[in-house]
Protein backbone atom coordinates (compact mmCIF):
# COMPACT_ATOMS: atom_id res chain seq x y z
CA UNK A 1 0.00 0.00 0.00
CA UNK A 2 2.87 2.28 0.86
CA UNK A 3 4.49 1.70 -2.55
CA UNK A 4 1.15 2.36 -4.25
CA UNK A 5 0.90 5.73 -2.47
CA UNK A 6 4.47 6.54 -3.38
CA UNK A 7 3.73 5.96 -7.04
CA UNK A 8 0.64 8.17 -6.77
CA UNK A 9 2.74 10.90 -5.17
CA UNK A 10 5.28 10.67 -7.98
CA UNK A 11 2.52 10.92 -10.57
CA UNK A 12 1.12 14.06 -8.92
CA UNK A 13 4.56 15.61 -8.57
CA UNK A 14 5.28 15.09 -12.25
CA UNK A 15 1.85 16.43 -13.25
CA UNK A 16 2.52 19.57 -11.22
CA UNK A 17 5.91 20.05 -12.87
CA UNK A 18 4.23 19.77 -16.28
CA UNK A 19 1.58 22.32 -15.30
CA UNK A 20 4.13 24.75 -13.91
CA UNK A 21 6.41 24.52 -16.92
CA UNK A 22 3.45 24.93 -19.25
CA UNK A 23 2.22 28.02 -17.40
CA UNK A 24 5.71 29.54 -17.44
CA UNK A 25 6.22 28.89 -21.14
CA UNK A 26 2.77 30.21 -22.04
CA UNK A 27 3.56 33.40 -20.15
CA UNK A 28 6.93 33.70 -21.88
CA UNK A 29 5.43 33.05 -25.28
CA UNK A 30 2.74 35.67 -24.69
CA UNK A 31 5.43 38.17 -23.67
CA UNK A 32 7.37 37.30 -26.84
CA UNK A 33 4.23 37.73 -28.93
CA UNK A 34 3.69 41.19 -27.42
CA UNK A 35 7.38 41.95 -28.02
CA UNK A 36 7.10 40.99 -31.67
CA UNK A 37 3.92 43.09 -31.97
CA UNK A 38 5.69 46.10 -30.44
CA UNK A 39 8.68 45.63 -32.76
CA UNK A 40 6.32 45.36 -35.74
CA UNK A 41 4.45 48.53 -34.74
CA UNK A 42 7.72 50.39 -34.16
CA UNK A 43 8.91 49.27 -37.57
CA UNK A 44 5.71 50.50 -39.17
CA UNK A 45 5.99 53.83 -37.36
CA UNK A 46 9.62 54.20 -38.42
CA UNK A 47 8.76 53.36 -42.02
CA UNK A 48 5.94 55.92 -41.97
CA UNK A 49 8.21 58.57 -40.41
CA UNK A 50 10.93 57.82 -42.95
CA UNK A 51 8.49 58.24 -45.81
CA UNK A 52 7.30 61.53 -44.30
CA UNK A 53 10.86 62.80 -43.81
CA UNK A 54 11.83 61.75 -47.33
CA UNK A 55 8.78 63.50 -48.73
CA UNK A 56 9.51 66.70 -46.80
CA UNK A 57 13.18 66.56 -47.70
CA UNK A 58 12.46 66.02 -51.37
CA UNK A 59 10.08 68.97 -51.27
CA UNK A 60 12.57 71.21 -49.48
CA UNK A 61 15.40 70.19 -51.83
CA UNK A 62 13.05 70.75 -54.76
CA UNK A 63 12.08 74.17 -53.41
CA UNK A 64 15.70 75.10 -52.86
CA UNK A 65 16.64 73.98 -56.37
CA UNK A 66 13.75 76.04 -57.75
CA UNK A 67 14.87 79.07 -55.71
CA UNK A 68 18.46 78.54 -56.88
CA UNK A 69 17.33 78.42 -60.51
CA UNK A 70 15.11 81.48 -60.06
CA UNK A 71 17.89 83.29 -58.25
CA UNK A 72 20.37 82.55 -61.05
CA UNK A 73 17.93 83.93 -63.59
CA UNK A 74 17.25 87.04 -61.49
CA UNK A 75 20.96 87.47 -61.04
CA UNK A 76 21.62 87.28 -64.79
CA UNK A 77 18.73 89.64 -65.59
CA UNK A 78 19.75 92.15 -62.91
CA UNK A 79 23.35 92.09 -64.07
CA UNK A 80 22.27 92.76 -67.62
CA UNK A 81 19.88 95.53 -66.56
CA UNK A 82 22.43 97.26 -64.34
CA UNK A 83 25.02 97.08 -67.11
CA UNK A 84 22.58 98.64 -69.57
CA UNK A 85 21.77 101.47 -67.13
CA UNK A 86 25.46 102.12 -66.57
CA UNK A 87 26.00 102.16 -70.32
CA UNK A 88 23.22 104.77 -70.69
CA UNK A 89 24.89 106.90 -68.08
CA UNK A 90 28.26 106.49 -69.72
CA UNK A 91 26.77 107.54 -73.06
CA UNK A 92 25.18 110.51 -71.38
CA UNK A 93 28.41 111.33 -69.69
CA UNK A 94 30.17 111.18 -73.03
CA UNK A 95 27.72 113.71 -74.39
CA UNK A 96 28.66 116.06 -71.57
CA UNK A 97 32.32 115.59 -71.94
CA UNK A 98 34.39 118.74 -71.64
CA UNK A 99 35.51 118.77 -75.29
CA UNK A 100 31.96 118.69 -76.60
CA UNK A 101 30.94 121.45 -74.23
CA UNK A 102 34.00 123.52 -75.09
CA UNK A 103 33.16 123.21 -78.76
CA UNK A 104 29.60 124.40 -78.12
CA UNK A 105 30.83 127.25 -75.91
CA UNK A 106 33.44 128.18 -78.54
CA UNK A 107 30.73 128.31 -81.22
CA UNK A 108 28.55 130.42 -78.94
CA UNK A 109 31.51 132.72 -78.11
CA UNK A 110 32.32 133.02 -81.79
CA UNK A 111 28.73 133.98 -82.52
CA UNK A 112 28.86 136.45 -79.67
CA UNK A 113 32.18 137.91 -80.85
CA UNK A 114 30.85 138.40 -84.37
CA UNK A 115 27.65 139.93 -83.01
CA UNK A 116 29.76 142.26 -80.88
CA UNK A 117 31.67 143.30 -84.06
CA UNK A 118 28.32 143.88 -85.80
CA UNK A 119 27.20 146.02 -82.82
CA UNK A 120 30.46 148.02 -82.90
CA UNK A 121 30.17 148.59 -86.64
CA UNK A 122 26.58 149.67 -86.17
CA UNK A 123 27.63 152.19 -83.50
CA UNK A 124 30.40 153.57 -85.73
CA UNK A 125 28.03 153.77 -88.65
CA UNK A 126 25.44 155.55 -86.50
CA UNK A 127 28.00 158.12 -85.38
CA UNK A 128 29.11 158.72 -88.98
CA UNK A 129 25.59 159.26 -90.21
CA UNK A 130 24.77 161.67 -87.39
CA UNK A 131 21.10 162.38 -86.95
CA UNK A 132 20.28 160.09 -89.84
CA UNK A 133 21.96 157.27 -88.09
CA UNK A 134 20.02 157.59 -84.80
CA UNK A 135 17.87 154.61 -85.54
CA UNK A 136 21.05 152.69 -86.36
CA UNK A 137 22.38 153.65 -82.90
CA UNK A 138 19.28 152.21 -81.25
CA UNK A 139 19.78 148.92 -83.11
CA UNK A 140 23.51 148.93 -82.19
CA UNK A 141 22.63 149.38 -78.49
CA UNK A 142 20.14 146.56 -78.63
CA UNK A 143 22.69 144.31 -80.29
CA UNK A 144 25.24 145.27 -77.62
CA UNK A 145 22.70 144.38 -74.91
CA UNK A 146 22.05 141.08 -76.63
CA UNK A 147 25.80 140.41 -76.73
CA UNK A 148 26.12 141.19 -73.03
CA UNK A 149 23.18 138.91 -72.19
CA UNK A 150 24.54 136.16 -74.40
CA UNK A 151 27.93 136.41 -72.67
CA UNK A 152 26.23 136.04 -69.30
CA UNK A 153 24.18 133.09 -70.58
CA UNK A 154 27.30 131.42 -71.97
CA UNK A 155 29.10 131.84 -68.64
CA UNK A 156 26.09 130.44 -66.82
CA UNK A 157 25.82 127.55 -69.27
CA UNK A 158 29.45 126.63 -68.73
CA UNK A 159 28.98 126.65 -64.96
CA UNK A 160 25.82 124.56 -65.13
CA UNK A 161 27.41 122.16 -67.54
CA UNK A 162 30.27 121.59 -65.18
CA UNK A 163 27.81 121.00 -62.33
CA UNK A 164 25.78 118.55 -64.41
CA UNK A 165 28.92 116.86 -65.58
CA UNK A 166 29.94 116.28 -61.95
CA UNK A 167 26.50 114.95 -61.10
CA UNK A 168 26.46 112.49 -64.01
CA UNK A 169 29.97 111.35 -63.14
CA UNK A 170 28.97 110.79 -59.49
CA UNK A 171 25.89 108.89 -60.52
CA UNK A 172 27.87 106.71 -62.86
CA UNK A 173 30.36 105.93 -60.11
CA UNK A 174 27.59 105.17 -57.62
CA UNK A 175 25.82 102.93 -60.09
CA UNK A 176 29.02 101.03 -60.81
CA UNK A 177 29.58 100.60 -57.06
CA UNK A 178 25.97 99.56 -56.55
CA UNK A 179 26.27 97.07 -59.39
CA UNK A 180 29.28 95.36 -57.83
CA UNK A 181 27.78 95.34 -54.29
CA UNK A 182 24.34 94.23 -55.40
CA UNK A 183 25.66 91.52 -57.67
CA UNK A 184 28.02 90.33 -54.96
CA UNK A 185 25.09 89.99 -52.54
CA UNK A 186 23.02 88.16 -55.12
CA UNK A 187 25.90 85.82 -55.87
CA UNK A 188 26.32 85.13 -52.16
CA UNK A 189 22.63 84.28 -51.89
CA UNK A 190 22.93 82.04 -54.92
CA UNK A 191 25.83 80.08 -53.45
CA UNK A 192 24.05 79.86 -50.07
CA UNK A 193 20.93 78.47 -51.69
CA UNK A 194 22.98 75.95 -53.67
CA UNK A 195 24.86 74.97 -50.50
CA UNK A 196 21.55 74.57 -48.61
CA UNK A 197 20.25 72.35 -51.37
CA UNK A 198 23.36 70.16 -51.13
CA UNK A 199 23.05 70.03 -47.33
CA UNK A 200 19.39 69.08 -47.73
CA UNK A 201 20.28 66.23 -50.05
CA UNK A 202 23.03 65.01 -47.72
CA UNK A 203 20.72 65.28 -44.74
CA UNK A 204 18.10 63.27 -46.59
CA UNK A 205 20.62 60.54 -47.41
CA UNK A 206 21.92 60.42 -43.82
CA UNK A 207 18.41 60.29 -42.37
CA UNK A 208 17.48 57.49 -44.75
CA UNK A 209 20.59 55.56 -43.65
CA UNK A 210 19.71 56.00 -39.96
CA UNK A 211 16.15 54.87 -40.55
CA UNK A 212 17.29 51.88 -42.62
CA UNK A 213 19.70 50.84 -39.85
CA UNK A 214 16.98 51.17 -37.21
CA UNK A 215 14.61 49.17 -39.36
CA UNK A 216 17.24 46.45 -39.88
CA UNK A 217 17.91 46.33 -36.12
CA UNK A 218 14.21 45.92 -35.40
CA UNK A 219 13.98 43.21 -38.06
CA UNK A 220 16.89 41.40 -36.41
CA UNK A 221 15.28 41.77 -33.00
CA UNK A 222 12.07 40.31 -34.37
CA UNK A 223 14.03 37.40 -35.89
CA UNK A 224 15.83 36.74 -32.60
CA UNK A 225 12.54 36.69 -30.67
CA UNK A 226 10.90 34.44 -33.28
CA UNK A 227 13.86 32.06 -33.25
CA UNK A 228 13.62 31.86 -29.46
CA UNK A 229 9.87 31.33 -29.48
CA UNK A 230 10.17 28.16 -31.53
CA UNK A 231 12.15 26.66 -28.65
CA UNK A 232 9.05 26.83 -26.46
CA UNK A 233 7.97 23.61 -28.21
CA UNK A 234 10.48 21.75 -26.03
CA UNK A 235 8.20 22.30 -23.03
CA UNK A 236 5.52 20.38 -24.94
CA UNK A 237 7.94 17.63 -25.92
CA UNK A 238 9.15 17.24 -22.32
CA UNK A 239 5.56 17.33 -21.05
CA UNK A 240 4.60 14.62 -23.52
CA UNK A 241 7.47 12.41 -22.36
CA UNK A 242 6.66 13.04 -18.71
CA UNK A 243 3.01 12.23 -19.36
CA UNK A 244 4.16 8.93 -20.82
CA UNK A 245 6.21 8.35 -17.67
CA UNK A 246 3.00 9.01 -15.67
CA UNK A 247 1.25 6.39 -17.80
CA UNK A 248 4.03 3.98 -16.80
CA UNK A 249 3.58 4.86 -13.15
CA UNK A 250 -0.14 4.26 -13.46
CA UNK A 251 0.61 0.78 -14.76
CA UNK A 252 2.88 0.14 -11.78
CA UNK A 253 0.09 1.46 -9.53
CA UNK A 254 -2.32 -0.97 -11.17
CA UNK A 255 0.14 -3.81 -10.73
CA UNK A 256 0.62 -2.93 -7.06
CA UNK A 257 -3.13 -2.85 -6.61
CA UNK A 258 -4.09 -5.97 -8.57
CA UNK A 259 -0.82 -7.82 -8.64
CA UNK A 260 -1.20 -8.44 -12.37
CA UNK A 261 2.01 -8.14 -14.31
CA UNK A 262 0.71 -9.22 -17.71
CA UNK A 263 1.93 -7.25 -20.73
CA UNK A 264 3.06 -4.31 -18.61
CA UNK A 265 5.99 -3.50 -20.87
CA UNK A 266 3.97 -3.80 -24.05
CA UNK A 267 1.24 -1.60 -22.62
CA UNK A 268 3.62 1.18 -21.65
CA UNK A 269 5.18 0.95 -25.12
CA UNK A 270 1.82 1.72 -26.67
CA UNK A 271 1.83 5.15 -25.00
CA UNK A 272 5.08 6.27 -26.62
CA UNK A 273 4.84 8.99 -29.22
CA UNK A 274 8.43 9.11 -30.44
CA UNK A 275 11.06 6.78 -31.82
CA UNK A 276 13.49 7.85 -29.12
CA UNK A 277 11.17 6.67 -26.36
CA UNK A 278 10.76 3.32 -28.08
CA UNK A 279 14.50 2.96 -28.51
CA UNK A 280 15.26 3.82 -24.87
CA UNK A 281 12.60 1.28 -23.86
CA UNK A 282 14.08 -1.40 -26.08
CA UNK A 283 17.62 -0.81 -24.87
CA UNK A 284 16.58 -0.75 -21.20
CA UNK A 285 14.52 -3.93 -21.50
CA UNK A 286 17.30 -5.75 -23.34
CA UNK A 287 19.95 -4.37 -20.98
CA UNK A 288 21.94 -2.80 -23.75
CA UNK A 289 23.94 0.40 -23.65
CA UNK A 290 22.16 3.33 -25.17
CA UNK A 291 24.02 4.33 -28.26
CA UNK A 292 23.75 7.76 -29.71
CA UNK A 293 21.40 7.59 -32.65
CA UNK A 294 20.44 10.27 -35.07
CA UNK A 295 16.78 10.77 -34.34
CA UNK A 296 14.53 12.18 -36.97
CA UNK A 297 13.91 15.58 -35.39
CA UNK A 298 13.02 18.19 -37.98
CA UNK A 299 12.59 15.49 -40.63
CA UNK A 300 10.52 16.78 -43.51
CA UNK A 301 8.51 14.74 -45.95
CA UNK A 302 6.20 15.83 -48.74
CA UNK A 303 3.50 13.38 -49.76
Amino acid sequence: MEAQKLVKVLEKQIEKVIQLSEAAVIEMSQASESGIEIVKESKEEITASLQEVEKLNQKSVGDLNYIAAENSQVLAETEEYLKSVIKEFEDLFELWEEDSQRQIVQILEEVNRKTRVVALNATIEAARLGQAGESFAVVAKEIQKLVDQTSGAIAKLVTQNRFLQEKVKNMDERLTLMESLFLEKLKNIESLVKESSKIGEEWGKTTAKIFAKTEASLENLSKVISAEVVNFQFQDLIAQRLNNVIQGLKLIEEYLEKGEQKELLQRIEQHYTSEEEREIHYQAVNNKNIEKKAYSAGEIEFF
Partner: protein
Amino acid sequence: MKKILSLDDSVTMLQSVKITLKAKGYEVATFTKGSEALNNLTRDKYDLIITDLNMPEMDGITFIQKVRTIPSYKFTPILVLTTESQAAKKEQARKAGATAWITKPFTAEQLLMVVEKIVR
Protein backbone atom coordinates in the same frame (compact mmCIF):
# COMPACT_ATOMS: atom_id res chain seq x y z
CA MET B 1 -2.76 37.60 -46.11
CA LYS B 2 -2.75 33.77 -46.02
CA LYS B 3 -4.83 32.19 -43.27
CA ILE B 4 -3.63 29.13 -41.39
CA LEU B 5 -5.49 26.90 -38.94
CA SER B 6 -3.25 25.23 -36.35
CA LEU B 7 -4.47 22.33 -34.19
CA ASP B 8 -2.52 20.90 -31.24
CA ASP B 9 -3.54 19.85 -27.72
CA SER B 10 -0.50 21.75 -26.40
CA VAL B 11 -0.94 25.52 -25.97
CA THR B 12 2.82 26.07 -25.91
CA MET B 13 3.19 24.27 -29.24
CA LEU B 14 0.38 26.39 -30.70
CA GLN B 15 2.09 29.55 -29.47
CA SER B 16 5.40 28.48 -31.06
CA VAL B 17 3.73 27.84 -34.39
CA LYS B 18 1.57 30.96 -34.27
CA ILE B 19 4.37 33.40 -33.38
CA THR B 20 6.78 31.89 -35.92
CA LEU B 21 4.24 32.16 -38.74
CA LYS B 22 2.79 35.52 -37.71
CA ALA B 23 6.28 37.04 -37.87
CA LYS B 24 6.25 36.16 -41.58
CA GLY B 25 2.88 37.77 -42.17
CA TYR B 26 0.54 34.76 -41.89
CA GLU B 27 -2.72 34.98 -40.01
CA VAL B 28 -2.97 32.04 -37.61
CA ALA B 29 -6.03 30.68 -35.76
CA THR B 30 -5.24 28.13 -33.04
CA PHE B 31 -7.35 25.27 -31.65
CA THR B 32 -6.69 22.65 -28.97
CA LYS B 33 -9.62 20.44 -29.96
CA GLY B 34 -10.30 18.83 -33.32
CA SER B 35 -14.08 19.29 -33.06
CA GLU B 36 -13.74 23.04 -32.55
CA ALA B 37 -11.29 23.30 -35.42
CA LEU B 38 -13.72 21.43 -37.72
CA ASN B 39 -16.56 23.77 -36.78
CA ASN B 40 -14.41 26.76 -37.54
CA LEU B 41 -13.25 25.38 -40.88
CA THR B 42 -16.76 25.61 -42.26
CA ARG B 43 -17.23 29.15 -40.93
CA ASP B 44 -13.95 30.52 -42.25
CA LYS B 45 -11.71 29.85 -45.22
CA TYR B 46 -8.14 28.72 -44.57
CA ASP B 47 -5.21 28.36 -46.97
CA LEU B 48 -3.37 25.78 -44.88
CA ILE B 49 -4.11 23.41 -41.98
CA ILE B 50 -1.45 22.30 -39.49
CA THR B 51 -2.23 19.44 -37.13
CA ASP B 52 -0.63 17.30 -34.44
CA LEU B 53 -1.26 13.54 -34.43
CA ASN B 54 -1.42 12.46 -30.79
CA MET B 55 -4.30 14.35 -29.25
CA PRO B 56 -6.73 13.09 -26.57
CA GLU B 57 -10.06 14.37 -27.89
CA MET B 58 -9.65 13.56 -31.57
CA ASP B 59 -6.43 12.16 -33.06
CA GLY B 60 -4.80 13.84 -36.03
CA ILE B 61 -5.54 11.08 -38.54
CA THR B 62 -9.29 11.24 -37.77
CA PHE B 63 -9.16 15.03 -37.98
CA ILE B 64 -7.51 14.91 -41.44
CA GLN B 65 -10.07 12.37 -42.67
CA LYS B 66 -12.94 14.62 -41.49
CA VAL B 67 -11.37 17.70 -43.08
CA ARG B 68 -11.20 15.91 -46.43
CA THR B 69 -14.94 15.26 -46.30
CA ILE B 70 -15.61 19.02 -46.36
CA PRO B 71 -15.91 19.89 -50.09
CA SER B 72 -14.15 23.26 -49.81
CA TYR B 73 -11.15 21.60 -48.07
CA LYS B 74 -10.71 18.70 -50.46
CA PHE B 75 -7.44 20.11 -51.83
CA THR B 76 -6.33 22.46 -49.02
CA PRO B 77 -2.79 21.51 -47.92
CA ILE B 78 -2.51 19.78 -44.53
CA LEU B 79 0.80 19.74 -42.66
CA VAL B 80 1.35 17.17 -39.89
CA LEU B 81 3.53 18.39 -36.99
CA THR B 82 4.30 15.51 -34.66
CA THR B 83 6.93 13.77 -32.55
CA GLU B 84 6.11 10.56 -34.42
CA SER B 85 8.37 9.46 -37.25
CA GLN B 86 7.28 5.90 -37.87
CA ALA B 87 6.83 5.03 -41.52
CA ALA B 88 3.49 3.34 -40.73
CA LYS B 89 2.14 6.53 -39.14
CA LYS B 90 3.32 8.57 -42.09
CA GLU B 91 1.57 6.22 -44.45
CA GLN B 92 -1.63 6.52 -42.40
CA ALA B 93 -1.44 10.30 -42.58
CA ARG B 94 -0.71 10.25 -46.29
CA LYS B 95 -3.70 7.99 -46.93
CA ALA B 96 -5.92 10.21 -44.79
CA GLY B 97 -5.02 13.16 -47.00
CA ALA B 98 -1.99 14.90 -45.43
CA THR B 99 0.26 16.95 -47.72
CA ALA B 100 3.50 17.14 -45.73
CA TRP B 101 5.08 15.99 -42.48
CA ILE B 102 7.54 17.56 -40.04
CA THR B 103 8.89 15.62 -37.09
CA LYS B 104 9.14 17.63 -33.85
CA PRO B 105 11.25 19.37 -32.69
CA PHE B 106 11.65 21.60 -35.69
CA THR B 107 13.38 24.92 -36.37
CA ALA B 108 11.61 28.10 -37.42
CA GLU B 109 13.35 27.87 -40.83
CA GLN B 110 12.12 24.30 -41.37
CA LEU B 111 8.53 25.20 -40.53
CA LEU B 112 8.58 28.33 -42.70
CA MET B 113 10.20 26.53 -45.61
CA VAL B 114 7.52 23.83 -45.65
CA VAL B 115 4.65 26.29 -45.13
CA GLU B 116 5.88 28.58 -47.92
CA LYS B 117 6.20 25.59 -50.21
CA ILE B 118 2.74 24.12 -49.72
CA VAL B 119 0.50 27.06 -48.83
CA ARG B 120 -2.02 28.01 -51.52
